[in-house]
């Protein structure tokens, strides 16, 4: 955390949080700029849609502001914000499941690039994986995204989710088996 990005980056998260709590509301924009894209990928992969992810990130940032006084360790604002976003992502999925409204297609996440022909197969596989991820349980999808998309170690994932390393590995190993089954046409 605390990447030094230009003038505003010189303030640590804790300094910005304290300034906002002291009444300087505009300083909150520093945290918005710092974390909006950082967590966008996690939310997109968890929710399978960039638009839904954008709503989730926006909502999490507003909720974090509303409850900023509850942030017990301001220097760990990033982890605290992540937990708010994570709860928001889980709630979004539960709500859509209850309403039997599937999340949007993952097509938009892959709408972009003109890729060389040789990479076509890889693009197809990546697309298939994104769709397959939506068929995992939320817990399995989360551990896969945090490890293989965000590049976190099991110990780091345990730190942000509160689960034990053993249970995370069990989830992940079930996810590998399920993904193999779902992806058999693309491997």
């Amino acid at each position, binding site marked *: 955390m605390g990447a030094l990005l230009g003038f505003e980056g010189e303030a640590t998260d804790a300094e910005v949080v304290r300034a906002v709590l002291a009444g300087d*509301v*505009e300083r*909150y*924009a520093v945290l*918005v*700029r710092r974390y*909006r*894209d950082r967590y*966008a*990928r996690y939310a997109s*992969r968890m929710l399978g849609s*960039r638009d839904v*992810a*954008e709503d989730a*990130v*926006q909502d999490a*940032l*507003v909720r974090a*502001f*509303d*409850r900023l*006084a*509850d942030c*017990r360790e301001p220097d760990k604002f990033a982890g605290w914000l992540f*937990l*708010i976003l994570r*709860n928001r992502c*889980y*709630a979004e999925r539960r*709500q859509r499941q209850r309403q039997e409204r599937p999340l949007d297609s993952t097509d938009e*996440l*892959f709408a972009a690039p003109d890729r060389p022909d040789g990479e076509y197969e890889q693009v197809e*596989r*990546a697309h*298939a*994986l*994104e769709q397959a991820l939506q068929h995992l349980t939320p*817990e399995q999808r989360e551990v*896969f995204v945090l490890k*293989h*998309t965000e*590049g976190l170690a*099991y110990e780091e994932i345990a730190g942000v*989710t*509160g*689960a*034990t390393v053993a*249970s995370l*590995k069990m989830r*992940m*190993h079930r996810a*590998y*088996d399920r*993904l*193999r*089954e779902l*992806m*058999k046409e*693309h*491997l």
Partner: protein
Amino acid sequence: MKTGYHALVKRLLDGELTLAELPPELRAEGEEALRLVGAADRAPVALSPALDERVMATVRRHAGDAPANRVWRWLNTPRDVELRLRVRPWTVWAGGLAAAAALALLLGRAAPAPPLGPGTQARAGLRDSVLVRFVLYAPGARRVAVAGTFNQWDRSIAPLVPAGTSGVWTTTLALPVGQHQYAFVVDGARWIVDPAAPAVDDGFGRRNSVVAVSAPGGHTL
């Protein structure tokens, strides 16, 4: 194709082994598995540039709110509530008896009321209670309870029950109208404020969550 990966191949995917360390007969399976995780898209996802201004506009509005408005906004925010009901046959009979007792109580009110004793006060209190559902997402927890001013902060009185294997713990309590402070207790020792509720300082350097219970037809802030 077999359904699952060999345990050694899973260790390869976890980064605990290299492809060269796999037995020769598992290398093809290992290469296939690496293609699978290699398909994970690690490209950054860019959100709309307008997001910053939308967040800040909402934040400025909320910052100008009076505390009572913030509590009211929290009370008005839609939340997930799951109600699951398992009915056993004997509970139908028990429910019938309870309904009969309630009817008798209502009819009995026509007669002069006796002086209020403890039991009567309890019943009167129940009429001014509202069912409040507590929900906590704690996937790694072995047990969760809620303790607060409504149960003298006793961590053994109000346990939450897990909703399946989702990691969500819930319970529903009848709370008197008014404002209550509370916190969740995870595994008997770890106190956690409710992430979905406003919180106040308890005067000892910790924070308690707050729930404001309003009577039907009115609101208590």
